[in-house]
């Protein structure tokens, strides 16, 4: 698996809508909205920050099996990508990581504001204390709506309709 390219790393950090999924041993899926994201140096691993207050079922799943899926969507132009992989570490987020969650929340609020979501709502979401979940990316899929949705992702992530 090639490391994430610079443009995709920037996309993931730009305040896009995030959703992370896991499943339990009976294959019942779970889904949360991560409160922050960091692509680790080398571009092969990603750390997600999950608000501990309401990520309980997700974290229990990740203790029993390590499978995780992450979708990232820009709600303004619908560019979207899904990453799948295996969790390599789960631990309480450190205080020095807190600015990452504040930063994501602020960018997320800016992303949604032109679409009519008042900034105050996003800024009131509970993000701390958080649990840091690091996973190794094993597969990436394009999820922008259209005929290429679901195909293996090939950098760069295009603006819909734009040439390669």
């Amino acid at each position, binding site marked *: 698996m090639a490391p994430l390219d610079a443009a995709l790393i920037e996309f993931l950090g730009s305040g896009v809508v995030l959703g992370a999924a896991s499943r339990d041993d009976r294959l019942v*899926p779970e889904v949360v909205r991560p409160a922050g994201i960091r692509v680790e140096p080398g571009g092969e691993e990603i750390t997600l920050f999950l608000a501990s207050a309401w990520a309980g079922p997700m974290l229990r799943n990740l203790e029993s099996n390590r499978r995780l899926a992450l979708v990232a969507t820009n709600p303004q132009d619908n560019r979207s990508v899904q990453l799948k992989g295996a969790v390599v570490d789960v631990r309480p987020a450190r205080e020095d990581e807190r600015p990452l969650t504040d930063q994501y929340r602020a960018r997320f609020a800016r992303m949604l504001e032109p679409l009519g979501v008042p900034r105050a709502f996003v800024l009131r979401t509970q993000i701390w204390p958080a649990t840091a979940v690091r996973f190794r990316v094993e597969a990436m899929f394009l999820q922008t709506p259209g005929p290429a949705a679901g195909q293996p992702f090939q950098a760069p992530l295009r603006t819909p309709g734009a040439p390669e």
Partner: protein
Amino acid sequence: MISLKDISSCFEGVIPAMMSTCSLEGEPNVTEISQVHLVDEKHVALSHQFFNKTQRNVRENPHATILLHAPVTYRLYRLQLRLDHSEAEGPLFDEMSARLQVIASHTGMLGVFKLRSADVYEVLSVEELAHFFLPADPRLDPPQPTTGVLDAMARELRILRAISDRVNRASCLEVLLEQVFQALDEQLGFHHSMVLLPDDRGHLVTTASHGYGSEGVGAEVPLGEGLIGTVAARRRPMRVAGVGAELRYWRTIRAELQHAGKAPAAPEIPLPGLPDAQAQLALPLLVGDRLVGVLALESREAMAFDAWTETFLNILANQIALGIDRASSAEEEPEATLEQPGPGAAPGTARRPRVFQLFRNDDCIFVDGEYLIRNIPAKILWKLLRAHAENGRTEFSNRELRLDDSLGLPELRDNLESRLILLRKRLEEKCPEVRIRPVRRGRFVLDVGCAVQLRESDSA
């Protein structure tokens, strides 16, 4: 368990939901979905239009979990679902399919994608993620005034009665529509509304509107196209919330299809009124099973129209329909009270002359090279203008128009009054020097405040 009815606003499709599924091999999948449909107290439905990982997963492992936001409050709910069955026909399928095509048609994608099935899920649990938000802060969240349900219903009944009285008292169709628009605006806060009436070619023509300026009267919608055309074809009300997000979604697909060399040929159809509408509601105006028009409302507020609004306005729509029907077959009443005459057009011919051009093959009139009107209203205008030019006549009656076979008015339910309204409004917009002014029920005056030249040719 929280009742699905209690969170019904989550199913309006204003905020996309997040959905996770899992393959039999244990690989989770996550995606955004634009709308979850409420079926009944225990079931929701999702549209299946593309074969994708989500569809494959739920067909081998029926479990799914979704996160749903309530509009306005943004409260977050977690629903655990299990695929129960798929429907490829029937009322639920038809409703979801029509909804899909309504938005698709506005982006020129009508029929490009078909709904394969309505997938019905049993709802196993509903839970509010109470910790999603920090505790309420009175500095950030001022207390909302609460009104009792009975108070609200009593208020709405009073409004309904007031509107109903206005409809009943209206002396003609134009007054009736103006009264309704005014009441919708002042009493209910719906600032953008229009009524479209069917013409002889199966199109719907905007005959009167409110909140759009003078633009738009005369605009046509083919039956079956867009929200209004679909509502007319299905004879069922329909509302769309989160219009902006839906349009963005379909424009993305359109752009991606173009990129892949599979571009649909159809052009985009502009939204009927507001370019930035976030919510639309259209109601068929029915007398029995007969369609006499469509009442359409728009708002920039995504949640302006809910299920209650739809029910409430449906009662009103029935009254308007009867009013239109009554007006369309109204006979001349010579003894009726004189309408308040408007200010007459300036006499004389000092203003610039206007050239009216009739294209006989298309029954279409242009004024100074600009499209004015077509079909029966065009034939009526030509008859009036010629009578005025040839012998100076200014006063006319509905009866003589009804007796003139050359106009092609149907014998029953000729909608003459609505055709005259359309003609009057188009003249106001394109040639205010020539006016049609009702003087009493069944009679009107042609005011010509400029020199008029009439030209005829077979085609353009």
